[in-house]
């Protein structure tokens, strides 16, 4: 028995020491990423007056550099494509944990998808994987059941198959990050859009309670950190969703500001400023960002 335990122990000590080599790949993983905003958040590299959180509507439709120029508030876009409000809460929590509090937070809403169950928006764990060298990120992945507790000890358990590739990830034209964190769509998608004019019915029973809680948590975080929360309804190539608006008003604290795109502005019914029915191209984003700047300037 002694021999067995000694052999086993020796084996695992040697393995434990050798597996530390995996940290080479763990440390290299962020370098392959084009989008390293999450790393900047975790390393406390920000000190901004205004941050933008949201999904693709946030990252495409608001040009943070333009906002900075027009309002004089240092701004950064921390929106991510395909993410839900739970992920947006995670970004805000992380930001506040490692960086000085901003004065304002712009929260871009996804209309009926904001609180809805299931897809198309979700908590994108894949955005966290390349940065699992940071314990905070790894702990979040453990809490979400995407890593096991062993990853606190073994580097190999923080790795993914993809981390062994030395190639930098491909970046599509609409994934190019600008200096202030926005990713404007350069050109329109080669499809014909049809303006949807029908009145939408909002379904409360299709809500995910966790997403409602996340929205409440965002409001509370802003309140306790003395941050002005501004929720934003971005334009879509369809009629305004009054049903969602009504529901939103039930959940929103009255002290928060709300920006709704100018529904009477005919430009938002012009197909040429849209990438697809829910996202603007750069020219459209410029128009929408100006609207937001105007609002901020008039409410300083």
């Amino acid at each position: 028995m002694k021999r067995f335990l000694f052999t086993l122990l020796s084996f695992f000590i040697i393995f434990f020491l050798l597996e530390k080599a995996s940290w080479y790949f763990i440390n290299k993983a962020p370098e392959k990423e084009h989008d390293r905003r999450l790393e900047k958040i975790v390393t406390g590299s920000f000190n901004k007056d205004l941050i933008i959180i949201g999904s693709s509507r946030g990252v495409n439709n608001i040009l943070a550099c333009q906002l900075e120029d027009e309002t004089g508030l240092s701004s950064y876009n921390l929106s991510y494509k395909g993410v839900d409000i739970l992920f947006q809460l995670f970004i805000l929590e992380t930001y506040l944990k490692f960086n000085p509090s901003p004065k304002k937070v712009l929260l871009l809403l996804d209309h009926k998808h904001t609180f809805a169950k299931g897809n198309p928006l979700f908590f994108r764990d894949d955005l966290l994987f390349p940065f699992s060298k940071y314990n905070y990120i790894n702990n979040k992945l453990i809490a979400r059941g995407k890593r096991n507790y062993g990853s606190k000890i073994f580097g190999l358990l923080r790795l993914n198959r993809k981390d062994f590739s030395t190639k930098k990830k491909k970046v599509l034209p609409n994934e190019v990050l600008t200096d202030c964190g926005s990713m404007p769509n350069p050109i329109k998608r080669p499809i014909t859009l049809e303006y949807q004019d029908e009145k939408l019915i909002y379904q409360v029973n299709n809500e995910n309670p966790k997403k409602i809680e996340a929205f409440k948590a965002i409001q509370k975080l802003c309140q306790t950190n003395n941050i002005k929360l501004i929720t934003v309804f971005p334009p879509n190539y369809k009629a305004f969703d009054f049903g969602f608006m009504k529901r939103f008003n039930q959940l929103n604290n009255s002290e928060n500001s709300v920006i709704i795109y100018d529904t009477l502005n005919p430009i938002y019914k012009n197909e040429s400023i849209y990438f697809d029915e829910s996202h603007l191209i750069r020219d459209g984003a410029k128009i929408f960002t100006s609207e937001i700047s105007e609002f901020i300037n008039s409410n300083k």
Partner: protein
Amino acid sequence: MYFNSLDFALFLPIVFILYWFVTNKNLKLQNALLVVASYVFYGWWDWRFLSLIVFSSLVDYTIGLQLNHTAQPSKRKLLLWSSILVNLGFLGFFKYYNFFIDSFVEAFSFFGSPIQPNTLDIILPVGISFYTFQTLSYTIDVYKRKLEPTRDIVSFLAFVSFFPQLVAGPIERATHLLPQFYKKRKFHYSQAVDGCRQILWGFFKKVVIADNCAEYANQIFNNSAEHSGSTLLMGALFFTFQIYGDFSGYSDIAIGTSRLFGFDLKQNFAFPYFSRDIAEFWRRWHISLSTWFRDYLYIPLGGSQGGTWMKVRNTFIIFLVSGFWHGANWTFIIWGFLNALYFLPLLLAKRNRTHLNVVAQDSKLPSIIELVQMGLTFGLTVIAWVFFRAESVTHAVTYLKGLFSSSLLSLPTIRPTNLLVLILFFIGIEWIGRRQHYAIEVLLLKQSRVIRWAFYMIIIAIIFVFSSDNQQEFIYFQF
């Protein structure tokens, strides 16, 4: 508790230490520890399931003793049937109740008399098919006087609930496993190291091969209508390796864990994908179940003793029952039927016991003929697995139609290079170790410790990296 969980990684060393260092001087205490550990292991899923396994164990323990006291054949038969009814009754209720109700409803609707279904929200207790067969084998063997019934209730409870093989086998016979609880176990260095090696290989099969194949198999099977024939073929191949890696991986972990406690379990898989015909495949796939059906169903039905018709009938019965054992779905029954059909020509030509040795026994590579035989057998198995994996018979038929279409010759849209390389590596290692109980049993044993350990460490590293990507439940837990 899953083998591939942190819970088990903590549970196993604790039980191991208590077993060899605290309770080692007292056999009864050691067995009692195994019972408690097994119940903790099992109750980890849902403690309510424990009542079922305890009840089933007590019924068979009592019936076993009663059988010993009774010489009257009619009374003995009554006792045997009581055990069969209780055990199969539980199994039937938990596993097949809704299936029968749904099938009746469908049948009535088909004949124009729709009825309201009255299905129940039943949770299938993990491993019920496995431990039911294990306890049944005990009672049948006692009834047939092949085995003395035990008076040692702790040993009996430990035999039924022995945690390494409780939820997914191998299905052990009382004649083989129960006596091991009566004797004091001695710790053997070589046995324990061998156990660790087998556990390692089991994890490799499960975490690296099965779980990663599952990712692609699910992707393809869940959207089969959208894929070309060649991609559907990839999906079927991925499932073929998934189910083998998953199930034989579990068996390896179970057998290896048992060896750490000084127990010897029977081999459950003997490199089935290197079989040269379907008969050989069934001698190598899920051996503990196949032999169970042989001994407790096929032989009592007359086995091969009668004429050709009798043999054919009995063969179909065991394959259909085997299919039904896997699950309450027509897909499993068709899978069993298909395998019986594959078996039929061999049976009629009396060639079902042609390949009793290991393929390429004395050479490194197979001959051309052996290669063709293995390819054909493997191909037939892949087709049958489509039924096993599909959601319904219609899904399986549509899948196969899509597979055997003109797009079979196109380039598959899903072809993960890393995984394909790993599968080739896996096949290579399995081929090298095909004469052993598991692939790496003697691999590199003649090499220096540095080389051997380096190999094991690489395997662990691969397991670690792949374990973080996507973990899947063991398929056979659902049976």
